[in-house]
């Protein structure tokens, strides 16, 4: 078991048994990417997929604390570099799920 993982190791059985759900989401991501790039011609809109991409990653594999920190830091750097701090907020699922998991650990330890 990976000690750094927020949750247990990825369970391949889960993914094999539920592949249609991430599959449907991937179809959606591909369609939105094509629309953003081909029809609207604004590649920057691809950033709007980021919150969902993080949640799909959480669903299909275990994310470590390092992943959450790296994701948040990445968007903070993007926000700083572009001087547009709303880009930093695109990382919102990482801190939200990290907090939820920290609460989860506390509640599980409580008698």
């Amino acid at each position, binding site marked *: 078991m990976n000690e750094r993982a927020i949750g*247990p190791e990825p*369970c391949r059985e*889960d993914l094999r048994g539920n592949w249609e*759900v991430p599959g449907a989401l991937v179809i959606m991501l591909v*369609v939105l990417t094509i629309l953003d790039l081909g029809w609207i011609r604004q590649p920057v809109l691809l950033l709007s997929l980021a*919150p969902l991409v993080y949640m799909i990653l*959480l669903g299909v594999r*275990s994310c470590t604390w390092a992943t959450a920190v790296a994701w948040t830091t990445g968007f903070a750097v993007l926000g700083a570099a572009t001087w547009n701090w*709303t880009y930093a907020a695109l990382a919102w699922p990482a801190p939200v799920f990290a907090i939820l998991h920290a609460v989860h650990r506390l509640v599980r330890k409580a008698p």
Partner: protein
Amino acid sequence: MRSEIAFFQLSAAAALVLLFRHAWRTFGRRDAILLFGFLLLMGTVRELDVVAISQMTDKPHPFSPDAAMAKLGPVSMGVVGGWVFCAYTSFFLARLIQRRSLRGTNVFMTLALSALITMGISYAVEVTGMRLHLWDWEQHASYVGWLPFGWTFNAFDGWAATSFNIMLLWCTLRYKLFSPVRWLSALVGTSLFVLFAGADFVQKGWSGTAPHMFLSIPYLLGAIALGYRAPAWMLGSSSNHLGFEQTRARSC
């Protein structure tokens, strides 16, 4: 029909076919048909609810789908299909996340997580959909200021609440949540749903925040609290049907 709308709707239909296949494999034919029939019905009810609230409160309809979107009477079937997609996908992606990161929690936590996931779906779809004019929000819509690209507050608030409430009602009716007595369980679930869906009917002449928004946070926090502490009798048969027992027993 505009080509981008046709492309969007055909891809959404393909995704829905995948999801129906998942439901069929997971729950069997009867339950899959029941669940998708229920989701289609509730998506339609949701759209009619929005129209009725607008008419009764003399407020403009918050959004108008493009005329090229598939319609059945006053209801845009493209939007209804979107609710089916959102509710189902969010709920089962929430189950996947829960099995990895929040083990030992129950169906109420799944519902709370599904609201968060729906927000992610909503943001991605709205940002692109608004620019393509798949639908247009009313002129005076307010926007979520802390995120880029202009996400309307109605979408931020409405999408998550819709998938949460639809799946809460389904789980209550199907798995007898809240009470072991079937009619009492149905009564509690339906009351929670009707209270939320009907809250905005009382806002005629009301200028402040829409009444349903006073319910969103208590519903979400309530679900998280019950996700940890709900007694077994409140969970009905959800643990068996949705694989919570197996999750605890299985070593990944």
